[in-house]
Each structure stands twice: as C-alpha cells, then as structure tokens.
C-alpha cells in the first residue's frame, strides 16, 4: 500500500535579497528590509515528503536512517550556518525561500534514490511557508 512519509529538519542561514540588475530604488521597493546590505538570518524548517509502497518485510516507505543521512550530508551540511548569497546555488538566483525550496528539491531529485520524492516544504518563519513538488499539483 502506498503511504507518504514526511520528515522535518531545521537549519539556520543568512541571506540578502538583492539583484544587481535593479536600481537601488527598485531593490528597496521590491525587497524592503530584506535588501539591507548586511543581510539577516532565519531559522528555516524543512519538511521533505517521500512516498512509496510500504515494504512488507520492514513496514517502511524508506528507512529513516537513509533519508536522515542524505539530508544531513547533502543539505544541512551545505546550508546550515552559512550565508546563502555566497553559495554556488545562488550565484545567479536571489536566495528567496522560493528559490531555496526549489534548490533543495533539485538536490533530492538528483541524489536521493531510496523513495519517490513528493515535495519539499519550507518555513522561513512561523508566519510563512513555501512548497514545491517539481511543478506537479500538491496533494492535500
């Protein structure tokens, strides 16, 4: 039977929302306080949903050890306590939580083989969150 498993992780990082192509006025009009030149940080919550048939011998969609290991190695190590603007993922894109969400989805899509990736959901603060499923409709 098919089940969906969601695991939640935390990491903290700083960023600045700014585009070189925009004038200073346009940057401030677009990004407001997030355009402050010194940047600011968030405690991000990351939720990863994977799906698949529940294995009859283990009772699992995927072994959490595999998912936790992958996320720790490939995502938390890469982003935790970093300035997102200086990372290669954001050499061209503004490190909004939308772009962070799709970057993390791409890392999982490319490298995680133990279950089907359904979606990535990120909370930037307790008041806002973003979800990405590779362009597919998100199941409620």
């Amino acid at each position: 039977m098919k089940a969906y498993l969601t695991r939640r992780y935390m990491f903290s990082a700083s960023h600045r929302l700014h585009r070189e192509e925009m004038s200073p006025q346009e940057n401030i009009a677009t990004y407001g306080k997030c355009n402050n030149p010194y940047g600011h940080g968030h405690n991000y919550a990351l939720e990863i949903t994977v799906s698949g048939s529940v294995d009859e011998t283990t009772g699992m969609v995927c072994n959490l050890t595999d998912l936790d290991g992958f996320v720790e190695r490939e995502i938390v190590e890469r982003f935790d306590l970093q300035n997102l603007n200086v990372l290669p993922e954001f050499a061209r894109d503004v490190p909004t939580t939308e772009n962070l969400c799709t970057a993390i989805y791409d890392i999982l899509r490319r490298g995680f083989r133990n279950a089907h990736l359904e979606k990535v959901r990120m909370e930037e603060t307790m008041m806002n969150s973003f979800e990405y499923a590779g362009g597919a409709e998100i199941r409620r």
Partner: protein
Amino acid sequence: MVYLTRKAEFSASHYYHNPDFTPEENQRIFGKCNNPNGHGHNYTLEVTLKGDVNPRSGFVVDLKQLKEILNREVLDAMDHRFLNKEVPEFANRIPTTENLAIAIWQRLAPKLKAAQLHRVRVYETPDLFVDFYGEA
C-alpha cells in the same frame, strides 16, 4: 465538497522486529527501534473526512459521532498499549508509523457512513508523520 479534520492523541509503545531476519539484520535495519523491551511515543492522529455540507445541520459530519468512532475504534484499542502485543494488526506486521496509519484507516473506513474518509495522518513525533489516502 468540504474537508474536515479531527485531531486525537494517544500514547503507545512498540518495537520493530521481523522474525524472518537474522538478529544482525534486525539490528542493522531497525537500529535502536529493535530493542525488544520497546519504547514509546505520544502519537497525534489527524483524521480528514470529505463530504457535502448537509443543508439542514450545516455539518459535513456530526463531530460527536466522529469522536465516538475515533474513541471506540482507535483510542480504546491503542492508547496506553504495547502495539506489538495488544493490537491484533501488529501480531504479524511491524508497527511502524506507516503501518499504523494503514491500520487506523482500515479500522475507520467501514465505520464512517456520513462522510468519506480522505486522509489519515499519524505523527510519531513533531518531526515525523505519515499520510495514508487508502491507496493500494
């Protein structure tokens, strides 16, 4: 169509073990969860139903009745129990969160007449939950 979600909490213990595996395999696959004396969680259950709003009552489903069904079918059977030993579904199935969500769906689906079961979500901890939609 309106979706309604009811929450409930229960606490239970379990351990993960497949008698067809060697002790080494059980240890490698299940890690600390393989401890035969078991360990416990505070589970949170979210049951989501869907249906049309009844024009007379304004309800998708009578919450009193839903609460009674949840208590009778799930909480009375699972709250403060050792899932492996006291819940029949887990005599031969490993009580992972995945299988718990499936077992709860199978207990509830035949009892819900007024509205259709849409989703069973079981939180094992605030950082881990499983959704089951009744898919084969």
